[in-house]
Protein backbone atom coordinates (compact mmCIF):
# COMPACT_ATOMS: atom_id res chain seq x y z
CA UNK A 1 0.00 0.00 0.00
CA UNK A 2 1.27 3.40 -0.93
CA UNK A 3 2.17 5.44 2.14
CA UNK A 4 3.87 8.80 1.70
CA UNK A 5 4.19 9.48 5.40
CA UNK A 6 7.67 10.32 6.67
CA UNK A 7 8.17 10.12 10.44
CA UNK A 8 10.08 13.33 11.06
CA UNK A 9 10.62 16.74 9.59
CA UNK A 10 14.35 16.06 9.49
CA UNK A 11 13.89 12.93 7.38
CA UNK A 12 11.48 14.71 5.07
CA UNK A 13 14.05 17.42 4.32
CA UNK A 14 17.26 15.38 4.41
CA UNK A 15 18.04 15.39 0.67
CA UNK A 16 17.63 19.09 -0.12
CA UNK A 17 21.03 20.01 -1.52
CA UNK A 18 22.93 23.29 -1.57
CA UNK A 19 21.85 25.35 -4.55
CA UNK A 20 18.31 23.95 -4.68
CA UNK A 21 15.30 25.97 -5.76
CA UNK A 22 12.67 25.74 -3.05
CA UNK A 23 9.08 26.94 -3.22
CA UNK A 24 7.60 27.75 0.18
CA UNK A 25 3.84 27.99 0.54
CA UNK A 26 2.06 30.72 2.44
CA UNK A 27 0.97 34.30 2.03
CA UNK A 28 2.61 36.23 4.80
CA UNK A 29 1.99 34.21 7.95
CA UNK A 30 -1.08 32.41 6.59
CA UNK A 31 -0.12 28.91 5.47
CA UNK A 32 3.56 29.35 6.18
CA UNK A 33 5.08 25.92 6.96
CA UNK A 34 7.11 27.13 9.94
CA UNK A 35 8.21 23.67 11.14
CA UNK A 36 9.50 22.74 7.68
CA UNK A 37 11.31 26.06 7.34
CA UNK A 38 12.91 25.71 10.75
CA UNK A 39 13.79 22.14 9.80
CA UNK A 40 15.54 23.51 6.74
CA UNK A 41 17.51 25.86 8.99
CA UNK A 42 18.56 22.86 11.09
CA UNK A 43 19.38 20.92 7.92
CA UNK A 44 21.65 23.70 6.72
CA UNK A 45 21.38 23.70 2.92
CA UNK A 46 22.78 26.93 1.48
CA UNK A 47 22.77 28.95 -1.73
CA UNK A 48 19.03 28.36 -2.02
CA UNK A 49 16.70 30.11 -4.41
CA UNK A 50 13.44 30.57 -2.53
CA UNK A 51 10.07 31.29 -4.12
CA UNK A 52 7.45 32.77 -1.80
CA UNK A 53 5.07 35.69 -2.07
CA UNK A 54 7.01 37.60 0.60
CA UNK A 55 10.31 37.53 2.43
CA UNK A 56 9.19 36.69 5.93
CA UNK A 57 8.61 38.68 9.08
CA UNK A 58 10.40 39.07 12.36
CA UNK A 59 13.19 36.58 13.00
CA UNK A 60 11.31 33.31 12.54
CA UNK A 61 10.27 31.20 9.58
CA UNK A 62 11.33 32.46 6.17
CA UNK A 63 12.96 35.57 7.64
CA UNK A 64 15.07 33.33 9.86
CA UNK A 65 16.08 31.15 6.92
CA UNK A 66 17.17 34.27 5.05
CA UNK A 67 18.84 35.68 8.15
CA UNK A 68 20.78 32.47 8.55
CA UNK A 69 22.46 33.15 5.22
CA UNK A 70 20.99 30.12 3.44
CA UNK A 71 19.18 32.02 0.70
CA UNK A 72 21.09 33.59 -2.16
CA UNK A 73 18.06 34.59 -4.22
CA UNK A 74 14.40 35.40 -3.58
CA UNK A 75 11.63 35.29 -6.19
CA UNK A 76 8.57 37.03 -4.78
CA UNK A 77 5.91 39.63 -5.43
CA UNK A 78 6.13 41.69 -2.26
CA UNK A 79 9.45 41.66 -0.37
CA UNK A 80 8.47 44.50 1.95
CA UNK A 81 6.18 44.37 4.90
CA UNK A 82 5.74 46.13 8.16
CA UNK A 83 7.76 43.60 10.14
CA UNK A 84 10.21 42.57 7.46
CA UNK A 85 13.69 43.58 8.61
CA UNK A 86 15.98 40.70 7.74
CA UNK A 87 15.57 40.73 3.98
CA UNK A 88 15.82 44.50 3.49
CA UNK A 89 19.11 44.58 5.40
CA UNK A 90 20.71 41.79 3.34
CA UNK A 91 19.31 43.21 0.13
CA UNK A 92 20.76 46.66 0.76
CA UNK A 93 24.08 45.05 1.58
CA UNK A 94 24.00 43.27 -1.77
CA UNK A 95 24.06 39.87 -0.10
CA UNK A 96 20.82 38.53 -1.59
CA UNK A 97 19.36 38.74 -5.08
CA UNK A 98 15.74 39.61 -5.79
CA UNK A 99 13.40 38.91 -8.70
CA UNK A 100 10.12 40.73 -8.27
CA UNK A 101 7.17 39.12 -10.06
CA UNK A 102 3.61 40.44 -9.91
CA UNK A 103 1.53 38.25 -7.63
CA UNK A 104 -0.82 36.92 -10.30
CA UNK A 105 2.00 36.28 -12.72
CA UNK A 106 3.91 34.48 -9.97
CA UNK A 107 0.90 32.24 -9.32
CA UNK A 108 0.32 31.59 -13.01
CA UNK A 109 3.99 30.87 -13.73
CA UNK A 110 4.00 28.29 -10.93
CA UNK A 111 0.79 26.71 -12.19
CA UNK A 112 2.18 26.67 -15.73
CA UNK A 113 5.20 24.71 -14.53
CA UNK A 114 2.93 22.15 -12.95
CA UNK A 115 0.70 22.01 -16.01
CA UNK A 116 3.44 21.55 -18.63
CA UNK A 117 2.91 25.00 -20.15
CA UNK A 118 6.36 26.47 -20.81
CA UNK A 119 5.11 30.01 -21.42
CA UNK A 120 1.96 32.11 -21.65
CA UNK A 121 0.89 35.66 -22.37
CA UNK A 122 -0.48 38.10 -19.83
CA UNK A 123 -1.46 41.78 -19.87
CA UNK A 124 0.09 42.28 -16.44
CA UNK A 125 3.11 44.64 -16.44
CA UNK A 126 2.46 45.94 -19.96
CA UNK A 127 3.61 49.56 -20.05
CA UNK A 128 5.66 49.26 -16.86
CA UNK A 129 9.34 48.82 -16.09
CA UNK A 130 8.66 45.21 -15.09
CA UNK A 131 7.89 44.45 -18.75
CA UNK A 132 11.28 45.73 -19.91
CA UNK A 133 13.32 43.08 -21.67
CA UNK A 134 10.36 40.76 -21.98
CA UNK A 135 8.97 39.55 -25.27
CA UNK A 136 5.74 41.34 -26.09
CA UNK A 137 3.14 40.75 -28.76
CA UNK A 138 -0.21 42.04 -29.80
CA UNK A 139 -3.11 39.61 -29.73
CA UNK A 140 -6.60 40.71 -30.78
CA UNK A 141 -5.49 44.35 -30.58
CA UNK A 142 -4.06 44.32 -27.07
CA UNK A 143 -0.44 44.04 -25.99
CA UNK A 144 0.71 41.16 -23.80
CA UNK A 145 4.02 40.03 -22.34
CA UNK A 146 5.27 36.47 -22.48
CA UNK A 147 6.05 34.83 -19.15
CA UNK A 148 7.86 31.52 -18.66
CA UNK A 149 6.94 28.74 -16.30
CA UNK A 150 8.59 28.69 -12.87
CA UNK A 151 9.69 25.31 -11.57
CA UNK A 152 11.34 24.20 -8.35
CA UNK A 153 13.27 21.25 -7.06
CA UNK A 154 11.32 21.17 -3.81
CA UNK A 155 8.11 22.60 -2.43
CA UNK A 156 7.54 22.99 1.31
CA UNK A 157 3.86 23.29 2.09
CA UNK A 158 1.57 23.32 5.12
CA UNK A 159 -1.89 21.81 4.99
CA UNK A 160 -4.81 21.03 7.27
CA UNK A 161 -5.36 17.35 6.59
CA UNK A 162 -3.56 14.78 4.49
CA UNK A 163 -4.04 11.09 3.84
CA UNK A 164 -1.26 8.54 3.18
CA UNK A 165 -1.70 9.04 -0.58
CA UNK A 166 -0.94 12.74 -0.20
CA UNK A 167 -4.44 14.05 -0.84
CA UNK A 168 -4.61 17.44 0.88
CA UNK A 169 -7.06 19.97 2.25
CA UNK A 170 -6.16 23.43 3.53
CA UNK A 171 -7.55 25.89 6.06
CA UNK A 172 -9.26 28.99 4.66
CA UNK A 173 -6.87 31.48 3.04
CA UNK A 174 -3.88 29.38 4.10
CA UNK A 175 -4.51 27.63 0.78
CA UNK A 176 -3.03 30.50 -1.31
CA UNK A 177 0.02 29.36 -3.33
CA UNK A 178 0.37 25.90 -1.80
CA UNK A 179 -1.68 23.79 -4.25
CA UNK A 180 0.19 25.40 -7.15
CA UNK A 181 3.59 24.80 -5.62
CA UNK A 182 2.70 21.14 -5.04
CA UNK A 183 2.21 20.90 -8.82
CA UNK A 184 5.39 22.71 -9.80
CA UNK A 185 8.09 21.06 -7.70
CA UNK A 186 9.95 17.87 -8.47
CA UNK A 187 9.60 16.85 -4.82
CA UNK A 188 6.74 18.16 -2.70
CA UNK A 189 7.06 17.92 1.06
CA UNK A 190 3.97 18.61 3.13
CA UNK A 191 3.49 19.21 6.82
CA UNK A 192 -0.05 18.38 7.89
CA UNK A 193 -1.92 19.25 11.02
CA UNK A 194 -3.84 16.00 10.79
CA UNK A 195 -2.87 12.77 9.11
CA UNK A 196 -6.09 10.94 8.31
CA UNK A 197 -6.80 7.49 6.92
CA UNK A 198 -7.18 6.71 3.27
CA UNK A 199 -10.78 7.50 2.38
CA UNK A 200 -11.30 9.99 5.20
CA UNK A 201 -11.13 12.93 2.81
CA UNK A 202 -14.23 13.06 0.62
CA UNK A 203 -12.97 12.77 -2.99
CA UNK A 204 -15.13 15.79 -3.84
CA UNK A 205 -13.26 17.91 -1.26
CA UNK A 206 -9.68 17.07 -2.10
CA UNK A 207 -7.91 20.32 -2.99
CA UNK A 208 -4.52 18.87 -3.92
CA UNK A 209 -4.65 15.31 -5.28
CA UNK A 210 -1.91 13.02 -4.00
CA UNK A 211 -0.23 12.78 -7.39
CA UNK A 212 1.32 16.17 -6.64
CA UNK A 213 2.68 15.17 -3.25
CA UNK A 214 5.76 13.09 -2.40
CA UNK A 215 6.18 13.22 1.37
CA UNK A 216 3.83 13.93 4.24
CA UNK A 217 4.95 14.62 7.78
CA UNK A 218 2.47 15.14 10.58
CA UNK A 219 2.94 18.27 12.71
CA UNK A 220 -0.13 18.15 14.94
CA UNK A 221 0.24 21.52 16.67
CA UNK A 222 1.99 23.80 14.24
CA UNK A 223 3.20 27.15 15.48
CA UNK A 224 1.96 30.25 13.68
CA UNK A 225 4.33 32.98 12.55
CA UNK A 226 2.14 35.71 13.97
CA UNK A 227 2.18 34.08 17.39
CA UNK A 228 5.93 33.61 17.36
CA UNK A 229 6.46 37.23 16.41
CA UNK A 230 4.01 38.48 19.03
CA UNK A 231 5.98 36.43 21.56
CA UNK A 232 9.24 38.01 20.38
CA UNK A 233 10.70 34.69 19.31
CA UNK A 234 13.60 34.07 17.00
CA UNK A 235 15.07 30.95 15.38
CA UNK A 236 17.29 29.09 15.83
Amino acid at each position, binding site marked *: MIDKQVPTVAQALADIPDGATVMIGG*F*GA*SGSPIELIHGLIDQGATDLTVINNNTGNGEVGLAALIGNGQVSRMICSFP*RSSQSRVFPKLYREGRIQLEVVP*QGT*LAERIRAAGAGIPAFYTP*TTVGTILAEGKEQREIDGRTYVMEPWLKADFALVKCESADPLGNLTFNK*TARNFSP*LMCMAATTTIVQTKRLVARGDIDPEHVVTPGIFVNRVVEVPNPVHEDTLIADGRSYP
Partner: protein
Amino acid sequence: MSSGWTREQMAARAARDIPDGAYVNLGIGIPELVARFVPEGREFIYHTENGMLGMGPPPGDDDRDLDLMNAGKKYVTALPGSAYFHHADSFSMIRGGHIDVCVLGTMQVAANGDIANWSTGAPDAIPAVGGAMDLVQGVKNIFVITQHTTRTGDAKLVERCTYPLTGAGVVSRIFTDLAVVNVTPDGFRVAELAPGIAFDEVQEKTGTTIAPPQ
Protein backbone atom coordinates in the same frame (compact mmCIF):
# COMPACT_ATOMS: atom_id res chain seq x y z
CA MET B 1 -8.26 76.22 3.83
CA SER B 2 -11.24 74.44 2.39
CA SER B 3 -12.79 71.46 4.08
CA GLY B 4 -13.90 69.05 1.35
CA TRP B 5 -14.69 65.41 1.98
CA THR B 6 -13.25 63.39 4.86
CA ARG B 7 -11.71 60.00 4.29
CA GLU B 8 -15.00 58.39 5.25
CA GLN B 9 -16.96 60.65 2.93
CA MET B 10 -14.61 59.88 0.07
CA ALA B 11 -15.16 56.18 0.66
CA ALA B 12 -18.92 56.64 0.90
CA ARG B 13 -18.94 58.65 -2.31
CA ALA B 14 -17.01 55.93 -4.12
CA ALA B 15 -19.37 53.27 -2.79
CA ARG B 16 -22.30 55.14 -4.37
CA ASP B 17 -20.76 54.51 -7.80
CA ILE B 18 -20.55 50.76 -7.34
CA PRO B 19 -23.60 48.92 -8.65
CA ASP B 20 -25.62 46.39 -6.68
CA GLY B 21 -24.24 42.87 -6.91
CA ALA B 22 -20.76 43.99 -7.88
CA TYR B 23 -17.67 41.91 -7.19
CA VAL B 24 -15.27 44.36 -5.58
CA ASN B 25 -11.62 44.34 -4.64
CA LEU B 26 -10.52 47.01 -2.17
CA GLY B 27 -6.94 48.18 -1.85
CA ILE B 28 -5.22 48.98 1.42
CA GLY B 29 -5.89 52.28 3.21
CA ILE B 30 -8.85 54.54 2.46
CA PRO B 31 -10.25 52.05 -0.08
CA GLU B 32 -10.86 49.59 2.78
CA LEU B 33 -13.37 52.06 4.23
CA VAL B 34 -15.66 51.56 1.23
CA ALA B 35 -16.97 48.36 2.83
CA ARG B 36 -18.43 50.44 5.66
CA PHE B 37 -20.54 52.59 3.34
CA VAL B 38 -22.47 50.22 1.12
CA PRO B 39 -25.59 52.11 0.04
CA GLU B 40 -28.94 50.91 1.34
CA GLY B 41 -30.41 48.14 -0.79
CA ARG B 42 -27.13 47.13 -2.39
CA GLU B 43 -24.85 44.20 -1.78
CA PHE B 44 -21.21 43.98 -2.83
CA ILE B 45 -19.16 40.81 -2.69
CA TYR B 46 -15.57 41.37 -1.67
CA HIS B 47 -12.71 39.57 -3.30
CA THR B 48 -9.34 39.36 -1.67
CA GLU B 49 -6.54 38.30 -3.98
CA ASN B 50 -4.99 35.87 -1.51
CA GLY B 51 -7.91 33.56 -2.20
CA MET B 52 -11.40 34.38 -1.01
CA LEU B 53 -14.75 35.72 -2.13
CA GLY B 54 -17.26 36.85 0.45
CA MET B 55 -14.83 38.51 2.82
CA GLY B 56 -16.45 39.97 5.91
CA PRO B 57 -15.41 42.56 8.53
CA PRO B 58 -12.54 42.08 10.97
CA PRO B 59 -13.17 39.46 13.66
CA GLY B 60 -13.38 40.00 17.37
CA ASP B 61 -10.27 39.02 19.28
CA ASP B 62 -11.88 35.80 20.41
CA ASP B 63 -13.14 34.46 17.11
CA ARG B 64 -10.26 35.09 14.78
CA ASP B 65 -8.59 32.39 12.75
CA LEU B 66 -4.90 33.17 12.21
CA ASP B 67 -5.11 31.58 8.75
CA LEU B 68 -7.95 33.84 7.60
CA MET B 69 -6.36 37.01 6.26
CA ASN B 70 -6.95 39.54 3.53
CA ALA B 71 -4.41 40.73 0.98
CA GLY B 72 -3.23 43.37 3.45
CA LYS B 73 -2.48 40.52 5.86
CA LYS B 74 -5.13 41.65 8.30
CA TYR B 75 -7.46 39.15 9.97
CA VAL B 76 -10.91 39.04 8.41
CA THR B 77 -14.06 36.93 8.58
CA ALA B 78 -16.04 34.90 6.06
CA LEU B 79 -19.64 35.74 5.28
CA PRO B 80 -22.22 33.06 4.45
CA GLY B 81 -21.79 32.12 0.80
CA SER B 82 -18.06 32.73 0.75
CA ALA B 83 -15.55 30.56 -1.08
CA TYR B 84 -11.84 29.84 -0.75
CA PHE B 85 -9.55 29.12 -3.70
CA HIS B 86 -5.87 29.12 -4.61
CA HIS B 87 -3.91 31.99 -6.07
CA ALA B 88 -4.14 30.91 -9.71
CA ASP B 89 -7.92 30.83 -9.48
CA SER B 90 -7.94 34.10 -7.57
CA PHE B 91 -5.90 35.90 -10.21
CA SER B 92 -7.96 34.27 -12.96
CA MET B 93 -10.83 36.23 -11.48
CA ILE B 94 -8.72 39.38 -11.69
CA ARG B 95 -6.92 38.91 -15.00
CA GLY B 96 -9.96 37.33 -16.65
CA GLY B 97 -12.11 40.40 -16.09
CA HIS B 98 -14.50 38.89 -13.57
CA ILE B 99 -14.05 41.53 -10.86
CA ASP B 100 -16.27 44.53 -11.51
CA VAL B 101 -14.58 47.24 -9.50
CA CYS B 102 -11.22 47.70 -7.86
CA VAL B 103 -10.70 50.68 -5.58
CA LEU B 104 -7.07 51.63 -5.11
CA GLY B 105 -5.02 54.22 -3.36
CA THR B 106 -2.29 55.90 -5.34
CA MET B 107 0.81 58.05 -5.35
CA GLN B 108 0.07 59.57 -8.75
CA VAL B 109 -2.62 59.28 -11.40
CA ALA B 110 -2.32 60.88 -14.81
CA ALA B 111 -4.72 62.55 -17.19
CA ASN B 112 -4.37 59.60 -19.58
CA GLY B 113 -5.42 57.10 -16.91
CA ASP B 114 -1.91 55.97 -16.02
CA ILE B 115 -1.44 55.05 -12.38
CA ALA B 116 1.72 54.90 -10.27
CA ASN B 117 1.17 53.38 -6.86
CA TRP B 118 3.81 50.73 -6.30
CA SER B 119 7.22 52.36 -6.26
CA THR B 120 8.81 55.76 -5.86
CA GLY B 121 11.60 54.61 -8.15
CA ALA B 122 14.12 55.72 -5.52
CA PRO B 123 17.45 53.97 -6.08
CA ASP B 124 17.49 52.36 -2.63
CA ALA B 125 13.81 51.39 -2.64
CA ILE B 126 13.09 47.69 -2.48
CA PRO B 127 10.71 47.00 -5.34
CA ALA B 128 7.47 45.39 -4.12
CA VAL B 129 4.55 45.12 -6.48
CA GLY B 130 2.18 42.51 -5.03
CA GLY B 131 -1.03 42.20 -7.01
CA ALA B 132 -1.31 45.84 -8.08
CA MET B 133 -0.25 45.32 -11.69
CA ASP B 134 -2.60 42.37 -12.10
CA LEU B 135 -5.50 44.33 -10.66
CA VAL B 136 -5.12 47.41 -12.85
CA GLN B 137 -4.89 45.32 -16.03
CA GLY B 138 -7.66 42.87 -15.22
CA VAL B 139 -10.46 44.52 -13.27
CA LYS B 140 -13.21 46.10 -15.36
CA ASN B 141 -13.36 49.43 -13.52
CA ILE B 142 -10.38 50.91 -11.72
CA PHE B 143 -11.40 53.53 -9.18
CA VAL B 144 -8.87 55.55 -7.21
CA ILE B 145 -9.43 57.11 -3.82
CA THR B 146 -6.79 59.60 -2.81
CA GLN B 147 -6.18 62.95 -1.19
CA HIS B 148 -6.04 65.48 -4.00
CA THR B 149 -2.47 66.43 -3.04
CA THR B 150 0.36 64.98 -1.02
CA ARG B 151 0.97 66.09 2.56
CA THR B 152 3.50 68.57 1.24
CA GLY B 153 0.96 69.96 -1.24
CA ASP B 154 2.23 68.35 -4.42
CA ALA B 155 -0.34 67.38 -7.01
CA LYS B 156 -1.22 63.69 -7.20
CA LEU B 157 -3.37 64.20 -10.29
CA VAL B 158 -0.75 64.98 -12.90
CA GLU B 159 -0.22 65.35 -16.63
CA ARG B 160 2.16 62.37 -16.73
CA CYS B 161 3.30 60.17 -13.86
CA THR B 162 6.89 60.67 -12.78
CA TYR B 163 6.95 57.55 -10.61
CA PRO B 164 7.18 54.14 -12.28
CA LEU B 165 3.81 53.07 -13.65
CA THR B 166 1.63 50.34 -12.20
CA GLY B 167 -0.45 50.36 -15.37
CA ALA B 168 -1.04 52.55 -18.40
CA GLY B 169 -4.42 54.04 -19.24
CA VAL B 170 -6.38 52.00 -16.75
CA VAL B 171 -8.02 54.41 -14.26
CA SER B 172 -11.59 55.48 -15.00
CA ARG B 173 -12.60 57.54 -11.95
CA ILE B 174 -10.91 59.27 -9.03
CA PHE B 175 -12.44 60.18 -5.68
CA THR B 176 -10.48 62.86 -3.83
CA ASP B 177 -11.20 65.04 -0.83
CA LEU B 178 -12.11 67.82 -3.25
CA ALA B 179 -13.94 66.22 -6.13
CA VAL B 180 -14.98 63.23 -8.15
CA VAL B 181 -12.87 63.26 -11.30
CA ASN B 182 -13.45 61.26 -14.47
CA VAL B 183 -10.62 60.21 -16.73
CA THR B 184 -11.92 60.94 -20.21
CA PRO B 185 -10.32 60.67 -23.65
CA ASP B 186 -9.64 64.41 -23.28
CA GLY B 187 -8.12 64.11 -19.82
CA PHE B 188 -9.40 64.91 -16.35
CA ARG B 189 -12.91 66.26 -15.93
CA VAL B 190 -14.58 67.09 -12.63
CA ALA B 191 -17.79 65.09 -12.30
CA GLU B 192 -18.75 66.48 -8.90
CA LEU B 193 -17.32 68.97 -6.43
CA ALA B 194 -17.21 68.32 -2.71
CA PRO B 195 -19.50 70.62 -0.72
CA GLY B 196 -17.92 74.04 -0.27
CA ILE B 197 -15.18 73.39 -2.84
CA ALA B 198 -14.84 75.73 -5.79
CA PHE B 199 -13.68 74.46 -9.14
CA ASP B 200 -10.78 76.94 -9.14
CA GLU B 201 -9.33 75.30 -6.06
CA VAL B 202 -9.48 71.89 -7.73
CA GLN B 203 -7.75 73.25 -10.83
CA GLU B 204 -5.13 74.92 -8.68
CA LYS B 205 -4.33 71.70 -6.84
CA THR B 206 -4.27 69.56 -9.99
CA GLY B 207 -1.00 69.15 -11.84
CA THR B 208 -2.51 69.57 -15.27
CA THR B 209 -5.57 71.02 -16.94
CA ILE B 210 -8.81 69.71 -15.53
CA ALA B 211 -12.16 70.37 -17.14
CA PRO B 212 -15.01 71.81 -15.05
CA PRO B 213 -18.24 69.90 -14.36
CA GLN B 214 -20.49 69.70 -17.45
